[in-house]
């Protein structure tokens, strides 16, 4: 197994003194499906954004694909970002544009300033967008405006936009937090499928422990900006959950006990 991503002593302090991340160390292998769990405000989003440098870490090193990217700026940073796809809790689509236009936005990192600004895409890119949408079951909605889509459909557009980048790594920031259970399952299945068939590494923030345990190869637990658990789902104990979530853990315990039954029911 090759290591794709490595975080070494990464910390993030904000100007007002809040510590979002302190001394975070972990690595992710190629093709792995890793879920980051933790209560809201624990620093999960900051952690993800320190990888593609949407947020600049104050300390530490990020190594992606054997290259230390901590000092990347300008053009090299843009080039790095094309290799890292990202999907968001609020889908972050341009609501007034059509589905295919939003998908093609994923190609902007490869474009010159002029062709990017004018939205000039090659036929090859458009074909690729079409196939991705077909694969994600959105063939019928290609020309629909995104504000007319349901939440689950919007997130699938978000996935297509990330995939068209040809990424090695997918960062997913709470992708199912605003979705109903059935759409959430569709999205998770798509992500798992992407990871399995396209061998794209997935790093996903979730706050539902049971879903994380169902899908992930490995779980990273974050609490107050620190990694407090890093291991296979089967190693996660009630005690660990309590460390991650603190005193609010009681209702999450039920999920973990029902976990096996859920898994059986799904199969």
């Amino acid at each position, binding site marked *: 197994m090759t290591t794709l991503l490595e975080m070494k002593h990464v910390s993030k302090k904000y100007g007002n003194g809040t510590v979002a991340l302190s001394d975070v160390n972990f690595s992710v292998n190629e093709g792995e499906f890793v879920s980051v769990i933790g209560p809201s405000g624990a620093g999960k989003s900051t952690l993800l954004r320190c990888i593609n440098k949407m947020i600049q870490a104050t300390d530490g090193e990020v190594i992606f*694909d054997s290259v230390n990217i901590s000092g990347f700026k300008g053009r090299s940073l843009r080039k790095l970002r094309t290799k890292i796809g990202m999907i968001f809790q609020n889908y972050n689509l341009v609501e007034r544009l059509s589905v295919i236009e939003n998908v093609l936005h994923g190609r902007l990192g490869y474009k010159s300033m002029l062709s990017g600004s004018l939205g000039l895409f090659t*036929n090859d890119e458009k074909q690729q967008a079409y*196939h991705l949408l*077909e694969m994600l079951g959105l063939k019928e909605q290609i*020309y629909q405006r995104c504000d007319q889509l349901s939440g689950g459909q919007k997130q699938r557009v978000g996935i297509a936009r990330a995939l068209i980048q*040809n990424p090695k790594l997918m960062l997913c920031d709470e992708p199912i937090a605003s979705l109903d259970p059935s759409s959430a399952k569709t999205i998770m299945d798509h992500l798992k499928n992407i990871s399995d068939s396209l061998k794209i590494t997935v790093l996903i923030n979730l706050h539902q422990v049971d879903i994380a345990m169902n899908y992930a190869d490995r779980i990273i637990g974050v609490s107050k900006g620190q990694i407090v658990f890093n291991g296979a789902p089967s190693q996660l104990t009630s005690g660990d959950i309590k460390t991650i979530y603190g005193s609010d853990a009681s209702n999450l315990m039920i999920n973990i006990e029902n976990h096996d039954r859920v898994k059986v029911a799904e199969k």
Partner: protein
Amino acid sequence: MSMKEPPRISPAMTSAPAMIKTKKLTKSNIVIRTTMTVLALLTIYGFFTFNNQNLKFWPSLMATFANFKTVFIQPHFNHFTFSQAVEGVTVTLALGLLTTIVGAVVAFFLSLLAAENLTNKTTSNIVKTIVAIIRAVPTVLWVLIFAIAAGLGSVAAVIGMSFHSISYLTKAYSESFEEIDEGAIEALKATGAGWWQIVFQSIVPNALTSLISWTFMRFEVNFGVAVAMGAAAGAGGIGYEMFMAGAFYFDIREMGTITYFILAIAIVLEILSTQIKARIRI
């Protein structure tokens, strides 16, 4: 670096149309583009038709910049004193204030008639149409028309300026009334309250914050209008001083002083207005 490129989905895999368009013309896209094109063409056409009377454009523009520089960098007092300037500003503020209050009082009653949920559709439409026509006449024309009957001065200025305030505030107030939840009115109707009781016990308290914020916003506008009416319609105040300094004495350095006075008041009013809006939204 042993990483392989992730397998990408090849274009030949499934049956896609050979050429794919990304833009689909929806009604809204067509309207936006048409509007943009028409406006752009009218602008270009406009520049060709402007009467320039042998004006040398670039030298004039440079001279204008030089003037702006003088206005802002070398203000001085010449034909009037500091205390006269303060007096001028106070008069202009007072004109703006009177106009706003007259406007607010009249607009309050008109907006009760214009709000669809308080009267009926016909009355509301009639009042709204009249108010729209009043608004279509520029303020300066109202002032000048009233000046014929009442003579140039503060009476014509306040009444003339009030027309526009009335029209603007009636629209704003009635829209605030129309936003009020039907239930709040129904609840009082159910207790057998009369129309005026409903207005003062339910409508006004519910809409009060937005009424105040609209009124203050209008005051902000009316200060500017009062400056302009001083300059163009003999309403007095700082606007008149400015007109004299600029168009009569050609003293642009004194224009500078006046400009700073006007700017200072306008900024204070804007800050107050945002403060009031922020405070009453809580």
